[in-house]
């Protein structure tokens, strides 16, 4: 669909049937790390990976070899399931405002 943001229509909620290859969404980074955020500009490419933090498997957003923050929410849950299956994703910085960062996540 032209202009689609991959949000899955009006209900907009990803479910387990959403193909990992089509998973793409905009999201806000959780707990953005100020030192890393200060180095970011719109358009920067970031890596997406999983990590074990405090006993939980989490999705993290990486700049170089440093953690810029995390992703947590319904989209991130689906993303983690796809990462577990071997799919790879990248993120692009959309906006930076007041230390908060919005990124666009898409399948590689």
């Amino acid at each position: 669909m032209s202009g689609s943001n991959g949000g899955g229509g009006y209900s907009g909620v990803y479910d387990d049937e959403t193909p990992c290859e089509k998973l793409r969404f905009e999201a806000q980074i959780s707990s953005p790390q100020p030192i890393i955020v200060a180095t970011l500009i719109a358009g920067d490419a970031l890596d997406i990976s999983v990590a074990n933090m405090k006993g939980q498997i989490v999705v993290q957003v990486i700049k170089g070899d440093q953690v810029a923050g995390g992703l947590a929410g319904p989209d991130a849950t689906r993303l983690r399931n796809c990462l577990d299956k071997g799919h790879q994703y990248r993120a692009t910085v959309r906006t930076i405002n007041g230390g908060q960062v919005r990124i666009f996540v898409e399948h590689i």
Partner: protein
Amino acid sequence: MTLHIVGGVYQEYCVHPRWNEIYGSAGRAAHAIATFGTPVVLHSYMTGDTLQVLKDKSVWLDTSFEIVQTEIPDIVRFTYLYDMAVPDIRGVPERPYTPLVVSEEKVLRFGMLEGDAVVHADWAVYDPQNVRNVQPFNANGSTAIHLALVLNANEACNMAGMPDEHPSKTAAVLAQQHGAEVVVVKMGPEGAFVWTSTGGEQVPAFRTNRVWKIGSGDCFVAHFANAWMHNGMTPTKAAEIASRATAYYCDTQGFPTADKLSKESFSPLQLSNSYLNGMRRQVYLAGPFFDLAQVWMVQQTRATLRNLGLRVFSPYHDIGLGCAEDVVGKDLEAIQTADLILAITDGLDSGTIYEIGYARALNKPVIVYSERHIGESLKMMEGSGCMICGDYTTALYTTLWEAVRL
């Protein structure tokens, strides 16, 4: 000392701008307070999936974030077309769940759609939320030695049974009804009125470059509760912190740390004497209405501006369709008498662009809403002092904020 938060945790989906999150009032307040540095315990009804998402979020916090789950089969879901729209709400059970019970020293309680919370606390803050059958704090047996109510002006009027009355009148009645020692009434561009037994004080609202509305009220209550109950600030100081933190949230869609908020500077909204004396400015709503999408936008915008307390002249509604000699003179006359103009410019309708130029030549403030056109297409507007907004809600609030300063 830990703050306990009890209330709804809901799924929030907004179509445009897109937003897909698990928060709800209590979930958002808990994250806002924890991000600010205060340990929290969140009490709520939630599904297993919801619990997992909240655990995922909590990992990224530097503060203790505990969750007391009362398991339910399905989450309540709010779907918004845009962030000021009335949401479509699904998943509310036909019969409310058994009330939660929270007996702790300091508790922030929100009203809920799916159940209720009985609170026993030394200190409590209660936001009844704009739900059906709003009940006083103690109606379900809740008790608190020190109680603060936080609600908006409409809720205050409804709960006090005093339609269209100023918070300086309704707050004292509500304090009596609820046994509260503090009542905070949110008043839109006028900020918040803070009532205590010694009198009332006003704290300002702050202007932001962008406005994101979903959950802004939750943030205000969260930061008020944290500042008043946890940090021991006066109610007025707590409300001012809450107003600034809410501005940060509306601007960024994120929660500030204490350090971040201390470094942010927002300007208080300017309110003219005319506005404070009851003058309500008239907005000329410029925009095309040649197909359903355009008419829908005009209809929606007119209704929302009126809900914000503005008078609106809409050529579609107030003049109608017609040939040039029927409508153009009336359009231009309406621009002359309007106080400011909101122009919907996506599509670059020639009539709308003409209206903008005409209004600027008369030195009327013009707010331009355009999501698709930047740069060259809007150069004349940008260069002639129009306020350019790329987001719908921001455009509506910018219009309000310009109107109240005239």
